[in-house]
């Protein structure tokens, strides 16, 4: 389909403008000199300076990062196991329940997930803090990882694994030498997804965090409830910049990999 009508051009332009203008405005106003966020008073980076001296934000950022790294790593391991079990596990007792538990958290409203986990932590007497947020984030993000990894597992050729087993690999070796390298891109994007979900989460973290551990979204939310502030604009700009750089470089890397893979396949075909 290569016939772009004027209607297509207009809807694409308006659509992407709608998606990006709010963030562009936010970024521009983060460099505003004035304390009044709606009045432009000249270029300044002073809000970034104040942000970097605000220890409460720095602490919250550190907690958020810790939680995200731990929870996404555990979630990737558990989620990959879950995907493997669902796609390759064959029949086992309670399979339907298992796949239900993998999919349900994806559609569960965050308020319910948060409430139920909080009630569990209180029920077993676990003090709320970094540990409880990590447990909570791991639980919902492992399901996302499972979905991402299993979609890759479904499409790849099972005979490769069987060949490895026939050639004398143990199942563990076959997984490590054959399966894992093939599903690696999906595992990595699963990790990235889990990581951003954790960085981003406000509701579940609010339920499961204690006074000792405040994450950045909780901090931002409580500040933002009082209205727009230039400091939060600066913080948001930093976060947008980090994500943009991360996503673009990740996509460039995967693109290069795809090109290399294509070349290798072509070469292999030629030599064969």
């Amino acid at each position, binding site marked *: 389909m*290569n016939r*772009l009508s004027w209607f*297509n051009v207009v809807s694409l332009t308006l*659509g992407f403008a709608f*998606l990006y203008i709010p963030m562009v405005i936010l970024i521009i106003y983060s460099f505003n000199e004035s304390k009044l966020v709606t009045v432009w008073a000249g270029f300044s980076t002073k809000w970034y300076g104040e942000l970097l001296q605000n220890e409460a934000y720095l602490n919250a950022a550190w907690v958020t990062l810790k939680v995200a790294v731990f929870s996404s790593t555990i979630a990737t391991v558990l989620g990959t196991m879950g995907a493997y079990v669902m796609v390759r596990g064959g029949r086992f007792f309670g399979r339907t329940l*298992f796949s239900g538990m993998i999919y349900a958290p994806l559609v569960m409203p965050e308020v319910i997930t948060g409430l139920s986990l909080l*009630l569990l932590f209180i029920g077993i007497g676990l003090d709320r803090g970094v540990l409880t947020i990590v447990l909570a984030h791991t639980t919902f993000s*492992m399901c996302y990882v499972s979905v991402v990894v299993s979609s890759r597992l479904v499409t790849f050729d099972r005979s490769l694994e069987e060949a490895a087993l026939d050639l004398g690999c143990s199942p563990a070796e076959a997984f490590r030498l054959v399966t894992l390298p093939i599903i690696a891109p999906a595992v990595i994007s699963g990790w990235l997804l889990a990581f951003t979900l954790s960085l981003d989460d406000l509701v579940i973290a609010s339920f499961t965090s204690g006074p000792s551990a405040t994450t950045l979204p909780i901090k931002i939310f409580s500040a933002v409830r009082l209205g727009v502030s230039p400091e939060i604009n600066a913080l948001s700009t930093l976060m947008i910049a980090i994500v943009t750089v991360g996503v673009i470089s990740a996509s460039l890397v995967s693109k290069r990999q795809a090109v290399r893979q294509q070349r290798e396949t072509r070469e292999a075909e030629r030599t064969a």
Partner: protein
Amino acid sequence: MGLLWLILFLVGASFFGFLLPVATLSTPFLQYLLQAVILGGLAYLLWRSLDDSRRSAVSRNLLIGTPYFWLMALFLVPFAIVLKISLSDVALARPPYLPHFDWATGIGAFLAELDFENFVFLTEDDLYWKAYLSSLKIAVISTVLTLLVGYPIAYGMARTPAEWRPTLMMLVILPFWTSFLIRVYAWMGILSNEGFLNQFLMWTGIISEPLTILNTNTAVYIGIVYTYLPFMILPIYAALERLDESLIEAAEDLGCSRLLAFWLVTIPMSKNGIIAGSFLVFIPALGEFVIPSLLGGSGTLMIGKVLWEEFFSNRDWPVASAVAIVLLLLLVVPIVLFQRNQQKQQEADQ
């Protein structure tokens, strides 16, 4: 047999978790470390004592058992607790509900204390069913709006030259990776009375007085459409990209106008994408909390917000739990429909 090992392993783990804090080590970190070393050693010894067939059975059971156990403990059990507390009574205690489960009085006495009082309360107080209805209304309207905004974008993307499409795809996905909270927050500055939108409209002379948009339902609609737009665009785009152009040409050759061909061919062919996208917007929108609490006003009733306030402000855990259970029951129908649509599509793909 493998299951037995798993049970043994778990019992052992909990036993050591219970025992070790008694051996008072200086820091919790050392305690965890010691615990991990002992458990690891134990597991290694067990592993060494097994022959090959046992080993594969054990590893299979561990592979299935670990995520299974995790989800049971942190998804299913918490949910059962919510159900239980929704049937309890609020009390001035810690935790603030009664009855507590007590092994001494037994399950019978415990069950006898439970009742549906909180659910009856939900039907009696106007606030709750109004909140459910208004959540449904807001979710439906914003899903339709998202579809109206998203479809032309997806359609335009599918008609651009193939080499542009990956870039456009990335531009759609990129906002999804940036913080949800920040994207909602960005609208607060735009929609407020002195905000960017009002300044712009007054500058162009379209309006002479600022419009009140922030803290109304309109702002909530804008927020939901904005944040969930990628979820609508991507499935529709996926469906449209696979659409065979010759079908439309055939329709036009047979005398359809372009508009009629669009209505009779393109829309039905992208039906699955439309359904999937609508559910992906509708389901999270129904339980939304952040958008109504930042962009909505005191008049915006949404059930996610009610639940939050019931729990954090009123500290009425039983009613908050009952609200959660009813919300989940509301979601069962769309979730089942969504799953069926996805399955149908998967079968069609194969």
